[in-house]
């Protein structure tokens, strides 16, 4: 079976982000990584492959040329193939999903398509839904458990208050996984051998223009980007212990409104 893992290149979790022209992120000096949820689900997909020798794992991403380094990292972990749909950044989720869907249709034979439950840059949680819609196949989000049977998959998804919902669905389908899917919490390290092998794998490059999805008007555009307001500094309540505790409780109730 052909397994596809959708990966997104995002700024490192520790990157200091600056805003450019009120709308964009200044990309200078940013370290780019594979979005952590994508990395976990890639790890999971690779483990599936190790148990099923006829599975093939292909990475697919929509992104600017710099996204290639993220693809190489995924290949170094052990994916066999990769598709890079080259596009300028700042596409809306629906357009990205359409591009992914079209490229997958062109590939033809896809089975399970994995994504992370969200990308950690904009945390939108939209692409996998649009993708499933474009391909007219089922999608489940927040997937924490995954079993496969002959023609179907049985998944468990996290819902409110730690409860789990069990869903059966046909293949092909889109699975948006959360951290801890089948207890996979850590991605593997790329081995030196893996890095060498990855170097030799050709990445299939497709220009987004060639996918014929033009005219897809973006449903979302960025109007303005601003940093969150700075946190006010902490406050120390002075005085007698009994008095200061009363004051603390009052502040928590009336000002912070957390009690």
């Amino acid at each position, binding site marked *: 079976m052909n397994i596809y893992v959708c990966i997104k290149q995002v700024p490192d979790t520790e990157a200091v982000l600056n805003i450019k022209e009120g709308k964009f992120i200044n990309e200078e000096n940013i370290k780019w990584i594979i979005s952590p949820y994508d990395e976990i689900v890639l790890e999971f997909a690779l483990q599936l492959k190790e148990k099923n020798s006829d599975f093939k794992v292909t990475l697919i991403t929509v992104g600017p040329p710099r996204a290639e380094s993220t693809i190489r990292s995924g290949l170094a972990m052990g994916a066999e193939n990769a598709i890079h749909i080259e596009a300028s950044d700042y596409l809306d989720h629906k357009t990205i999903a359409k591009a992914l869907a079209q490229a997958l249709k062109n590939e033809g034979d896809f089975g399970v398509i994995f994504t992370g439950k969200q990308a950690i840059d904009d945390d939108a949680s939209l692409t996998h839904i649009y993708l499933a819609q474009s391909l007219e196949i089922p999608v489940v989000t927040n997937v924490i458990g995954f079993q496969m049977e002959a023609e179907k998959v049985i998944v468990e998804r996290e819902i409110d208050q730690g409860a789990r919902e069990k869903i059966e669905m046909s293949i092909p389908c889109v699975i948006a996984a959360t951290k801890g899917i089948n207890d996979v919490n850590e991605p593997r*390290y790329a*081995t030196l*051998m893996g*890095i*060498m092998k*990855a170097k030799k794998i050709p990445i299939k490059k497709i220009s987004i223009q060639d996918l014929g999805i033009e005219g897809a008007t973006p449903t979302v555009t960025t109007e303005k980007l601003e940093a969150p307001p700075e946190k006010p500094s902490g406050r120390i309540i002075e005085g007698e212990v009994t008095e200061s505790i009363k004051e603390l409780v009052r502040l928590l109730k009336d000002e912070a409104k957390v009690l």
Partner: protein
Amino acid sequence: MEDFELSEEQKMIRASIRDFAEGEIAPVAEELDEHEQFSVELTKKMGDIGLFGIFVNPEYGGSGLDYLSYIIAVEEVARIDGSQAATVAAGNSLGIGPLYYFGNQKQKEKWLPELCRGEKLASFGLTEPEAGSDASATKTTAKLENQQWIINGSKIFITNSSSPISSVCMVLAKTGKRTDGKDELSSILVPNGTPGFETKTMKKKLMWRSSDTGELYFDDCQVPEENLLGKRGEGFHQMMETLDNGRLAIAAMGLGGSQGAYELAMKYSKERHQFGVPISTFQVNAFKLADMATEIETARALLYKACRMKNAGLPFSKIAAMSKLYCSEVMGRVVDHAVQLHGGYGLMKEYAVERFYRDQKLLTIGEGTSEIQRLVISRHIGCHS
């Protein structure tokens, strides 16, 4: 750190080994150091990610990478822990290296795969109680009788020779006299566990406390004639070549250790407040950090140049000695500043900088002291001719 002119793969190697060192080595480094414990488990993990046999052809289980990639990997391990970097540097340069470069097909097939997996370690037995800087003064003898080498003598300070996974030592021994009257030296492969070969782990070290260091004793130890490494009488030449390569790895430890200590010092100096301001803002401290950063960049440029010369097949013996000398001495200055910037806390084991301070000292002594490096360099630049 500017990774100017590195290939994509080299950048990926740095990133991957950095993640590994921070994730797997950093959490246990202090504890292993404290208990002088060599870790079989961690060595295997280092093998799994590919830290052994980096420059060895995949045919024998290596990764088939160039020397600069190897050096970057050692640098990244040393940025976190000197002891594990020692296991890796000696494992590759002194254990795997001579076997790979001088061994015959059969020897390579027999030993290399498990060494490259990090399941076993090989060692390079050169130094003796009476033969340190003057390694050619070897007293250990190997006599060929009935197609068996009979070995007698002892070795000291041999890295990776006495651990639970040490599999074989390449022993430098006198195998006769040359026509010019000098000793004929040859290397012989002696598997650990051979009767007459005893190892004793050396304890109470100041530094590299979780790296394995052994004393070796040979008492009528017999191994088959075919255990000769390369040709008879090539021992001295093999030793010199191995040390040239090894110096690059020791230099990488100096560079990586400097980087690690500098980062610790930088972080601490910005967090520590005295007189109401971070101590990094006092000019005397800021200048220390500036000097550290400058020397580290210089050291990196020199060492990477040496690696590129080796990759290009150019003579690199002089620049290898320069790199080893410079990188190890830079680390001496860097750790001195780094501990000074930590004040009293820098003298306590809770602060990793203390370990860097101790681990540095070996680097100006092992694989040729700083004095011997200066001797090598001064010969190369023609001071004695």
